[in-house]
């Protein structure tokens, strides 16, 4: 152990996507000794795949737009377990964060008057749902995530941020008091394992869509931060809430943006019927994503799906004309040709609901501080640990995220975490150093893999995990099926603990990375499964055949999954915004 090198920072940010790089930028400007540790070169992070835009009331498309309307939509979209203080913070701070991005150089598309182009997205309204469809999603064509991620990387270069690129964080290091005081990390190029000491550790590791067999997510989305936090014993919030995006390309899983429907595209069944008119008479194809995804599955189950097997529907865009497609949706035209062999100017795109986004995650306050519960169920701050972006559950998305709110979440709460950490560092942070045995315990699992001499293959076990999740925890769920899923996962966990890392080499050993990622997928899958089984109602993205209704008496709550006991508790939703009245839960229709 004594031969292990250590690196020391004021703050270490794990993850180089939008949230991590926005937090890093804030800290780099402050002059604190900060590093971003990312398992891929930052512009390879999954933020790059975001297409349609960043939703924010910058009052460009509509000069009278109001962040309170955006907040109302967000709370309603989340089926009322959105924390209202957090939604208030995000929607009101949003314009500042978006203008900052523009000042940094983000190449937004423009209106004739030179202001940022905004398009309609699902679940958007004016005047608290009373004023019709809003157009609130700021876009750079349909490559907004790419433009945003590159802009943030560029500005981090400008501000001399330290990057540990192609480094993999293995586990958190906790001291005797239970504070997080750094992590164990591995340089992928050499295989060297180091102890990273830090007063603030930020998990900005993104989502974990790869727990499902069919997902829009990048291959790297393996929930590494969630896995680390769970192994360290910290609770997860609302892990049953997974968004299935209505328009994943059938077969490939690749995303085509909701912006397609925002620009006027719509879904049709095998009879050519625009079926969303039946399910959501007002918003139609721009209802909440959970509503649209369920409607699509209903169409398929009732025999009105398209194709030979009737197992998908079509997204029709040809009526928009070449000019709109080339100008506003060039990226999806490209993706559709490559992955669906369909030119959207001529033919519809075959689509199917596909796992897209994790609403749950590490519970945090608006400053990004991770939260756990004491014995009486009261919130307690975890010393030294922060989270932002998809890995965090702050919770602005509640039970269903609105399109375009993810990019806003990244920049608003990445920025907020950065600002908070800067001031906390200025005030002084002192934690006990980690002891040898604290470090030992964070080294346990990498040692386990390195010492493995037999057992099953990582690739096979991963396929099994993904198929369990796909079959038992998809768009519609029910008790017996989920019970079975939980049982299978418990058995799978035992087998993963015995699995074999054949290649023990050091240099750029991606087999070791995939083994470590499998452990993280396992943690996320189990938390998801157990929380889904426990929430006995239907709310937002969590739809149960056996409990088809929302149950506000028992479940107007966050779920809290405690990994050591593998038990699910509850946590109060925040209904106290600071500057306006509470949005009371109503029946949610579009």
């Amino acid at each position, binding site marked *: 152990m004594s031969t292990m090198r250590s690196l020391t920072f004021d703050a270490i940010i794990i993850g180089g996507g939008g949230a991590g790089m926005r937090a890093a930028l804030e800290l780099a400007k402050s002059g604190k000794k900060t590093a971003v540790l990312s398992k*891929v*070169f930052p*512009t*390879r*992070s*999954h933020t*790059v*795949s975001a297409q349609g835009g960043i939703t924010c009331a*910058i009052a460009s498309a509509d000069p009278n737009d109001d962040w309170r309307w955006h907040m109302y939509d967000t709370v309603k979209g989340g089926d009322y377990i959105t924390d209202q203080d957090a939604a208030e913070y995000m929607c009101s701070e949003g*314009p500042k964060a*978006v*203008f900052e991005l*523009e*000042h*940094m*150089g983000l*190449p*937004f*598309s*423009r*209106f*004739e*008057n*030179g*202001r*940022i182009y905004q398009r309609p997205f699902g679940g958007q309204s004016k005047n608290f749902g009373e004023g019709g469809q809003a157009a609130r999603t700021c876009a*750079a*064509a349909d*490559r907004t995530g*790419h*433009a945003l991620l590159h*802009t943030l990387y*560029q*500005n981090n*270069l*400008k501000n001399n941020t330290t990057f540990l690129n192609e480094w993999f964080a293995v586990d958190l290091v906790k001291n005797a008091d239970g504070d997080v005081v750094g992590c164990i990390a591995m340089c992928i*190029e050499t295989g060297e394992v180091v102890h990273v000491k830090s007063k603030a550790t930020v998990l900005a590791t993104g989502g974990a869509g790869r727990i499902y067999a069919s997902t829009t997510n*990048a*291959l*790297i989305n393996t929930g590494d931060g969630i896995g680390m936090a769970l192994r360290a014993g910290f609770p997860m919030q609302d892990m049953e809430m997974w968004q299935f995006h209505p328009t994943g390309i059938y077969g*490939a899983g*690749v*995303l085509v943006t909701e912006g397609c429907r925002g620009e006027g595209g719509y879904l049709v069944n095998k009879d050519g019927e625009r079926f969303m008119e039946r399910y959501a008479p007002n918003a139609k194809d721009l209802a909440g994503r959970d509503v649209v995804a369920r409607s699509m599955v209903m169409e398929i189950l009732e025999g009105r799906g398209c194709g030979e097997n009737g197992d998908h529907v079509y997204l029709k865009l040809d009526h928009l004309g070449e000019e709109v497609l080339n100008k506003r949706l060039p*990226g999806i035209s490209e*993706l559709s040709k*490559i*992955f669906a062999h369909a030119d959207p100017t001529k033919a519809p795109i075959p689509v199917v609901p596909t796992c897209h986004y994790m609403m749950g995650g590490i519970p945090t306050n608006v400053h990004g501080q991770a939260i756990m519960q004491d014995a009486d169920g009261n919130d307690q701050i975890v010393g030294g640990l922060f989270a932002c972006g998809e890995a965090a559950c702050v919770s602005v998305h509640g039970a269903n995220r609105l399109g375009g709110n993810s990019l806003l979440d990244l920049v608003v709460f990445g920025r907020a975490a950065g600002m908070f950490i800067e001031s906390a560092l200025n005030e002084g942070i002192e934690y006990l150093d980690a002891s040898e045995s604290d470090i030992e315990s964070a080294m346990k699992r990498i040692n386990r893999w390195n010492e493995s001499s037999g057992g099953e*293959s*990582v*690739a*096979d076990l991963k396929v099994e995990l993904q198929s369990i999740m796909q079959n038992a925890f998809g768009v519609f769920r029910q008790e017996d099926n989920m019970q079975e899923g939980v049982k299978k996962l418990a058995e799978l966990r035992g087998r993963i603990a015995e699995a074999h890392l*054949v*290649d023990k*080499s050091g*240099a*750029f*050993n*991606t*087999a070791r990375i*995939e083994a470590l990622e499998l452990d993280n997928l396992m943690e996320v899958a189990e938390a998801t499964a157990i929380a889904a089984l426990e929430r006995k109602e239907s709310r937002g993205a969590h739809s149960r055949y056996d409990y088809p209704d929302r149950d506000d008496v028992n479940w107007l709550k966050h779920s809290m999954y405690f990994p050591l006991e593998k038990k699910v508790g509850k946590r109060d939703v925040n209904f106290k915004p600071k500057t306006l009245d509470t949005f009371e839960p109503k029946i949610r229709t579009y």
Partner: protein
Amino acid sequence: MSMLQVSIYRYNPETDSAPYMQEYRVDTQGRDLMVLNILEMLKAEDTTLAYRRSCREGVCGSDGMNMNGKNGLACITSLSDVVKNNKLVLRPLPGLPVVRDLAVDMGLFYKQYERIQPYLQNDEPAPAIERLQSPEERDKLDGLYECILCACCSTSCPSFWWNPDKFVGPAGLLQSYRFLADSRDTATQARLTDLQDPFSVFRCRGIMNCVAVCPKGLNPTRAIGKIRDMLLANAT
């Protein structure tokens, strides 16, 4: 049943004194898969095979490699695009040091990117809202900002092979022009001054390999031409 013959460049610095080509056979079951799918199938069997990948949809730029002699992204290159005579030869991007197998050390490539100061510079105080930009001004950034830094272009460029330390290369110059063309950037003069030596820009010989391989359909040669024009106008 026809088995696809795949030949892959292998090199592990810890165990191999020299690189070699390893032969594999893959049963595609007649499907027109992407090259990345083939790599994933092989990796499941031979876990020692190393390459980079992330988004698997052609937007992150991780899996640039040389496929049957041409640079491209493995995830959006289908077998029907590239396979000839049932044979697929995969090599790392040419001209950069190999870390392991198909993963190259991108350090020099990134250094040239950083060199052109790839960020907006504007010395005027920012307004309370966004800086305004007309749609026509914004249109000038199309074909430039979409670069994904996959390095397919620079590593197919003979001028970059000869002078990777002095010639910025097509990817870096495309980004340089992205900021020169941005109506919001005020550092034009400093940017041009930094590029006026005989190597940075003028080593481009118009070979256009960059244009032929860019997986995003971008045209670095045209951007380099525009920079040349600006440099020449600036000198007179």
